[in-house]
């Protein structure tokens, strides 16, 4: 009842608008496919981590691919739940946070590609403070962890290294590493390409305990979607991948412009630092987004060997899952087959 009322209201407004403007809608050409509006749940605040998505939006690649308006939703958020609830078509997450949702809640989610081939997650600490350099140094410390998916990562780090979770105090923090600097926490879950640099830039010597060096190598900034979208909205997902690949190619070609988009357009209210954005934009391209595998097989690729490595990491963290349950790389494969120039 409400729904039909809503439809009538929308129709009435549309008719009114057309009458007022005195013109009929332009007939859509048959070539242009329309997938409606695009919503993407980002994994973090709008900084240069998402340079490629910013380019794809700013340069109109999403529009060209057939999407209407584009809504890039800032994180950190309940990414998997947002995707499952249909609020967004694509969420940006990682295998460690997605797998438990599939295993424990029976959710039908798949990862269809990944931006970062390695993960830059670190436990950041101050050299003059707790100086957490080895995994054993975590014991008895207060670590700032953002609520949500990052907690799953932190649990996995402890589990994979056989550390009893009760021996480490987890403290809720937001994206700002200030609690580390002002001494509220001993360590802070961060990106070595982001907060670590920010804190170092403030004049502190920092220590990083990298997840990748401590039993948790995995891909991240991965595109997670529902099985339902794969089955029923496959072309839209492929269009998203294609446009986003184009965006990331631009981001790789012009890291400073990617930093500028974060600084002046998408994250202009965040008070980002120019030096840090330019550093992050450049560094992520060099060490995280591009590897020998992506140069051979295209961006966002997750090779079979990489999938095996991720599954092994998940197993160490206590999540036994198969490749077919977690990954579906067929869409990306089709995108590259249909658009070989993208490679």
């Amino acid at each position: 009842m409400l729904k039909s009322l809503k439809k009538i209201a929308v129709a009435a407004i549309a008719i009114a608008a057309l009458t007022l403007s005195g013109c009929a809608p332009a007939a859509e050409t048959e070539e242009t496919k329309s997938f409606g509006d695009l919503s993407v749940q980002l994994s973090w605040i709008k900084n240069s981590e998402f340079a490629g998505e910013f380019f794809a939006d700013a340069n109109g690649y999403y529009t060209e691919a057939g999407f209407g308006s584009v809504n890039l939703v800032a994180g950190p958020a309940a990414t998997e739940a947002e995707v499952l609830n249909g609020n967004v078509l694509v969420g940006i997450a990682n295998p460690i946070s997605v797998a438990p949702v599939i295993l424990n809640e029976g959710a039908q989610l798949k990862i269809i590609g990944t931006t970062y081939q390695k993960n830059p997650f670190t436990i950041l600490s101050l050299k003059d403070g707790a100086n957490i350099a080895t995994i054993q140094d975590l014991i008895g410390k207060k670590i700032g962890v953002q609520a949500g998916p990052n907690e799953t990562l932190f649990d996995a780090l402890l589990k994979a290294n056989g550390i009893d979770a009760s021996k480490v105090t987890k403290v809720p923090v937001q994206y700002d590493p200030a609690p580390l600097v002002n001494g509220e926490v001993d360590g802070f879950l961060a990106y070595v390409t982001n907060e670590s640099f920010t804190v170092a830039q403030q004049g502190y010597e920092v220590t990083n305990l990298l997840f990748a060096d401590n039993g948790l190598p995995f891909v991240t900034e991965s595109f997670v979607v529902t099985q339902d979208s794969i089955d029923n909205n496959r072309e839209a997902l492929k269009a998203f991948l294609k446009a986003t690949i184009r965006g990331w190619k631009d981001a790789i070609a012009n890291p400073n412009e990617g930093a500028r988009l974060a600084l002046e357009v998408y994250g202009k209210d965040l008070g980002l630092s120019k030096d840090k954005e330019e550093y992050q934009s450049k560094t992520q391209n060099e060490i995280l987004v591009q590897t020998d595998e992506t140069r051979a097989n295209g961006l966002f690729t997750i090779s079979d060997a990489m999938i095996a490595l991720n599954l092994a990491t998940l197993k160490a963290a206590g999540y036994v899952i198969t490749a077919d349950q977690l990954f579906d790389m067929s869409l990306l494969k089709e995108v590259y087959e249909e658009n070989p120039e993208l490679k």
Partner: protein
Amino acid sequence: MILNTLVSFAVVAVLWFVALWAFNVKPFIGKNPFDVYKFMFEVPAASENRDMVMTALGQTMIDASIGFVVGMFLATLISLLFSLSKGIEQALMPIAMLLRSVPLIAMAPIIILIFGREQMSVAVMGAIVVLFPALVNIVFGLRSAPPAMFDLVNVYGGNKLDALRTVAFPSSLPSFFAALKISVPGAITGALLVEWLATGQGIGYAIVSAIGRARPSEVWTYVALITIVSIVLYNIVALLEDSVLAKYGHAARK
């Protein structure tokens, strides 16, 4: 009273089902009371689930009690001061009202910076939530006796303290219990808030965490549990209120 409690539960359960249905919530996100029961008692991990939610609930109860006790103690103390001296009341009541209108959530970061992320912040934030509504109620109650009764104490040579003890205190009991009753859910709210923003323990944090990690059954279980506890505690205070007021001859006013 038990009937009251049962009616409250029934209303909550009906609202729960109706809301899920009316807003067309997807089954993955929106769990109903039966799903919560399954999460607690039927799924393979049920006993771990029970341990987890009970640990969180225990922590929240501790945090809420701290806020409740500190807040009620201060409210009682301050309102006694107010009733002994009109001057103090006139000077401080507006400030109390002002503090009441500052949103706690905006003050939280500064409270955390000053008092840290442990019990001190729990006490401060819990007390702020409980203190002001309780204070207003108790001050009103202490003034509620007819002036003639205070005059009577005066005539017999009693001082202000005598008047407080023999007249103001007994006549303030209904307001005092009203303050206690609103402070129970208030203290729980304060505890949830401080857990979410500062300590990272208890249900206040567990809900946020479980939402972030896409664990809807767990989220609904926490919400159901804290609602049940809130209703039960409220009714226990109401029960206490009835028996105390009856003893002091206030029952007819109910």
